[in-house]
């Protein structure tokens, strides 16, 4: 199962990456993806997650080909 992971704003700076391409042999949640991609980094408190550009909770299960994104609280407008 192939998953694209994207990071925005302060999370891009924190992880040092704009995106990851990960492979999983079994079904995983958004939270498991974070820890797989960022082994040494605790999931920051106020972080938001989206799958295919819709907001999801961290126990949302992803499907093959999904795009997962992690980012801080939004500050537009």
């Amino acid at each position, binding site marked *: 199962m192939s998953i694209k992971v*994207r990071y*925005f*704003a*302060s999370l891009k700076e924190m992880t040092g990456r704009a995106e990851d391409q990960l492979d999983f042999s079994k079904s995983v949640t958004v939270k498991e993806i974070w820890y797989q991609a960022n082994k040494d980094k605790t999931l920051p408190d*106020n972080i938001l997650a*989206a799958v295919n*550009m*819709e*907001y999801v909770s961290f126990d949302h299960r992803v499907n093959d080909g999904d795009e997962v*994104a992690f*980012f*801080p*609280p*939004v*500050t*537009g*407008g």
Partner: protein
Amino acid sequence: MDIKILAESFDPWQEIKQYQNSAKKIKGKVGATSIFVGTMRDFNEGDIIKAMTLEHYPHMTEKQLANIIEEAMQKWQIIDALVVHRVGNIFPDDPIVLVAVWSSHRGDAFDSSRYIMEALKAKAPFWKKELLASDDERWVGKNSDGYESRSR
């Protein structure tokens, strides 16, 4: 209905005029137009701000804004709506966001434009990084409730 993400400076009044002239369904039926324009202030949380960089998540931005307008159209009688948002490098007095709603009645126009603006602040994936007078940079942590005094 239109959603525009612009990397260059824009004139909100020009955007409105242009949209009104091109949108035939607005003619005759509109009694109320409610507009919100957000512009960059030269201050925030007690500091002087020289400039800002606005990052966004392309496509998710448009998707979320379309969802928000859709929700507003289910809640209120709206004839048409336009949302324009800047990204990139922004300086004081530059317009950041324009929300325009056209309706037959003022209550629907006021309520829906405010709904769209508050939902945009809560859900549209934009992030501001401020350049302070000291040349330090900082990410804006979260959007405020929109009032001068927080004691409300």
